[in-house]
């Protein structure tokens, strides 16, 4: 009802409905691209660098542009890094693009005078990856008007989930290229457990933060978003991957077939997308009166 606007709790719509759905996808792709890159840095999995770089810039970037009302003016977003999180984000992506380009170039073209494996470059890229992974939620986090986003626990959720998705992607690619999975599976185990922990802390902490935050969490867990949350985030995003991970943990790597890995990968993607969607969708403003 239009007359309930800002008289009752009013959900944010612009960043999730209509054209706003693109921002959700854009944040997601930027994040998983950076996640892939980040995990691949540790695993020294160079194909992952390229894939991560492309996913972040091409998929994430293009969808971001599609979201804007005036994409041709997007360069202007670089103008206010001192005050705007969005501006800082674009700078990070810009730097990620440029430095990543030089790191990846030797992967594609042999015979260049550098290898891209310099620890300085990897450290810089690692930091940039973390910033990109957290960028979406960081952008949302500064919005004080939406307590669901303004929760301090949202950044760890963002970071861990990014790494968790990234690790799955990287691990799948390792499997496809026939490489050793031991390290990557360790990454997966601990990022999944961390993800579960931070998500729980986020929900619990936010619920107790304010009335509006409580209402948001209620919508997420027992309201309009509940079915989506339980099926997408909980069952597909957490329980199925957890079962797979635990089985592998108990039985050893022989269980880790390509098919199983793929299933877990898909589940994690769906889980992450749903988690982001639910959080974006359930954010509500405190009524004005």
């Amino acid at each position, binding site marked *: *009802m*239009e*007359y*309930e*606007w800002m*008289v009752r709790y009013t959900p944010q719509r612009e960043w999730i409905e209509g054209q706003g759905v693109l921002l959700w996808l854009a944040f997601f792709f930027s994040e998983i691209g950076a996640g892939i890159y980040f995990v691949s840095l540790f695993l020294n999995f160079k194909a992952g660098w390229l894939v991560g770089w492309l996913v972040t810039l091409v998929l994430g970037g293009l969808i971001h542009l599609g979201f804007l009302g005036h994409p041709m003016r997007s360069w202007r977003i670089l103008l206010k890094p001192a005050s705007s999180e969005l501006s800082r984000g674009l700078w990070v992506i810009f730097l990620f693009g440029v430095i990543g380009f030089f790191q990846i170039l030797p992967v594609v073209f042999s015979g260049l005078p550098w290898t891209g494996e310099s620890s300085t470059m990897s450290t810089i890229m690692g930091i940039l990856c973390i910033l990109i992974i957290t960028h979406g939620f960081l952008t949302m986090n500064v919005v004080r008007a939406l307590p669901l986003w303004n929760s301090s626990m949202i950044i760890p959720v963002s970071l861990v989930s990014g790494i968790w998705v990234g690790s799955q992607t990287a691990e799948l690619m390792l499997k496809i290229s026939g490489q050793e999975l031991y390290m990557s599976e360790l990454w997966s185990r601990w990022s999944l457990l961390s993800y579960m922990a931070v998500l729980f802390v986020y929900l619990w902490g936010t619920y107790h933060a304010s009335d509006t935050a409580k209402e948001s969490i209620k919508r997420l867990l027992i309201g309009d978003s509940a079915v989506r949350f339980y099926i997408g985030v909980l069952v597909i995003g957490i329980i199925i991957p957890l079962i797979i991970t635990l089985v592998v943990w108990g039985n050893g790597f022989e269980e880790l077939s390509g098919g199983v890995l793929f299933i877990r990968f898909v589940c994690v993607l769906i889980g992450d997308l749903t988690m982001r969607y639910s959080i974006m969708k359930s954010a509500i403003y405190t009524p004005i009166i």
Partner: protein
Amino acid sequence: MSAQQEKIWEDVWVNTTCGGCYCGCGVRVRRINGVPVKIEGIPGSTMGGENGGVCGKGAAGIMYYHDPNRVTKPLRRTNPEKGIGVDPKWKEISWDEALEEIAERMKKIIADDPHKVLLTNQTQRASDGPHNHLYFYGAAVGQHANGCFIIGGGSLHCGNAAHMMGGLIHGAWSIAPDWRYTKYVLKFGSSKGTGSGHSAMTNARLRAQAMERGIKEVVFDPMCNFAGGKATEWIPILPGTDSALALAMANYILNELQVYDAQYLKAKTNLPYLIGPAGTYVRDKDSGKPLIFDEKEKKIKECDAPVQNYGDYALGGEFEVNGEKCRPAFMSLKEHLKQFGMGWASDITTVPAETIKRIAEEWVENAQIGSTITIEGKTYPYRPVAAVTFRGAQGHSNGIHQVAAIDLLCELVGAEDVPGGTLGWPSIRRKYPGGNYERKTIVGPDGVIVPGVFYSHIPWPPHKPKVPCKDIGCVDFWPHATLSHIPYVKERDEIWKKLGVTAKPEMLFGIACNFIVSNCDWQATVDFFKGLFVVQMDVWVNETDQAIADIVLPDVTWLEKDCWSSEIDAYFFSGSPSYEDWYCHMQKAVAEPVGECRFFMDVYLEVANRAGFRDKYNEIVNQYYSIEDEDLKFKPGEQPTWAEMGERVLKWVYGEDADKVKEQGYATWHKPIEDVYWRWEINSRVPVYMEFLIRARNEVERVCREVDMDLDYEQYTPNASWFSPTTYKELDDEYNMIAYSYRDVLHTNNTTFQNPMIDEVSKLCPYTYTVTMNTDVAKQKGFEDGNMVWIENRYGTREKGRIKTLEGQHPKTVGIAGQGGLWADMRPIAKGKGSNFCKILPTYLRHYDPVTGNIETSVAVKVYRAKD
């Protein structure tokens, strides 16, 4: 406006009068490159809002002009079948063809009997006057009273009882608190000062200033919305029971507190008049004047005999005149009131007895009986309490007693037409300096005021109810019906037969009147009117046009209208009741008429010319404005256009300033304080004791017995009394809720529903397009906000609506704003918006106030879920 200057070849403001509701505030319209783009108030005029203020629906007025759905050519129905849901199969015709047919028909009909032509006296567009000229038109045709006028727009829900009593008490159509000096205001079912009622924005402006001063406003209303929501204290009350509360308050004040303004009662009311055992006045044998007892001289005197001190008039005692025992009417009132106890009133109204008692005490305390105030060197009694009512409280089958009881509160403490009290307006019109036109009240028979400015069916002196009735309004029989209700009554055929009406109407010539959907049961109305040759001048094809019109003529909106008389007479409720300058606005055309649209007055005049009654009309206009200048008079054979008439009338009214006033679009001139509290200056008396009703009753009862007509003539009784509205007799376990309607600040009748700017904001308001119900009651019934429900009366008529629950609503009631639920195909914005309350009003004679003809505007209903 970040206007790109080079693209603008014109940017002007035109002063005119708003046509968004009947209040007609002064507004100026911005026209850029020939296009009306914005409406504001006029800072230099106090007619309307503060310093250039205008209400939302007024501001939205530009959209009427821009509406692509307007009728721009005359239309004729080609489908002979009429009715709701029937396609009229419109065909465009030429103006000449239309006018010729109308004039020919009219000529023939009025030659037979002029009462066979019906006119409309309120437009759907409400304030789009001139309104008084339509009465001149009726008279020019040969009609003797207002019984041939069909009520549209504001419909029967308007204030028959309020207007009648306003006329009797204040010589005025309307009442308002004296915002400038009052301290304490009681409102009963009225939104004066909070968006509706006459001079709405003038009152709103004055009220806002009063609120800033810190007045207390107590509102009795079923709903905490427009009036209640802004009040200092909202007290929920059941619809139509206000009189019970007021009577209990009056009883408490008079018989327990025994505090009242004796000086006022003696000087300004008929309560000292001596009455005999039958309740009628004891009159002087020779002069026929009522008598009083002068206590000082110990002598019976004529009521208007000169006295040094009003205090000499006796309010008590028993006397004998011509061998007949008599006593002052005050004694009768005092005794009569004793039956109305607090507990009794509380049971009826649901207002706790302690609350009623507290309000009565506050009322008396704030009245400051005995105090005086000196304004501009003149000293008046100072009574800073005002009790006002309008459509909500008076629109019931006990309407007259509702108004009389509420008025009684003011009378007892002397708070009428004195600083701080309840003021009536418009009562008089003072002439413009150097001009000529003035209207004043006079003191009529029995000392009661004869209004000088009154819209319809002047209330004093009342004529004797008589039969046979000349017209279908039967106003001959109902002397106190300001506007007639009979054409809408289910038993009308029988009533006409019994009351000897022979003028069966053949034609209706109306202006945008949407009476099919705005009065009561739609089908009952269609059944009667579809047999007539119906011509309407309208901006759109409204519901009435679609159902029954034969010819629709394209009318201009107020933005294209050149109307010199709009407010010239202080006639239609734009005036200020308060102590501020006189003002008078006209309507100036802001834009050229769209398509072939013509202003309805030009059309009326053209038909008068063609049908041969123009001379008579001219004569009436001369008389009305008392034009004495031979050069300016309208002579036989002359056929000036409306604008040409204006040139002459304005010269008469404004003298040498006529051109200046016309150019400016309005005039303001000083209002002396004596023009505000004029009633204190004249020797008139309020008929608090409604003795005339005893006399009327004798006739009414006699006729009813003779013709075997069932009318509740018990209400023809002199003291304000309690009569339960018909609704309460129709309440039972099944029809267990009371539906009522109220005026939304955004809407005027149903015109406004077609304005997309108003439509847009209507959706932002929780109540405008919804049906409201108390939160707990809705919960018990299993309703939630947004559910669709049926509201059905016990006669099988129902209306659909969307529920909005609110705490601020009497649990027994269901509220519907305005006149939505529309269906005219050529008004797509309006179509389907809101709900229509009028259609669920049952319309048997028992649903009408037997004295004033008010329809009962609450109805017993059952409410149940409909498909969403």
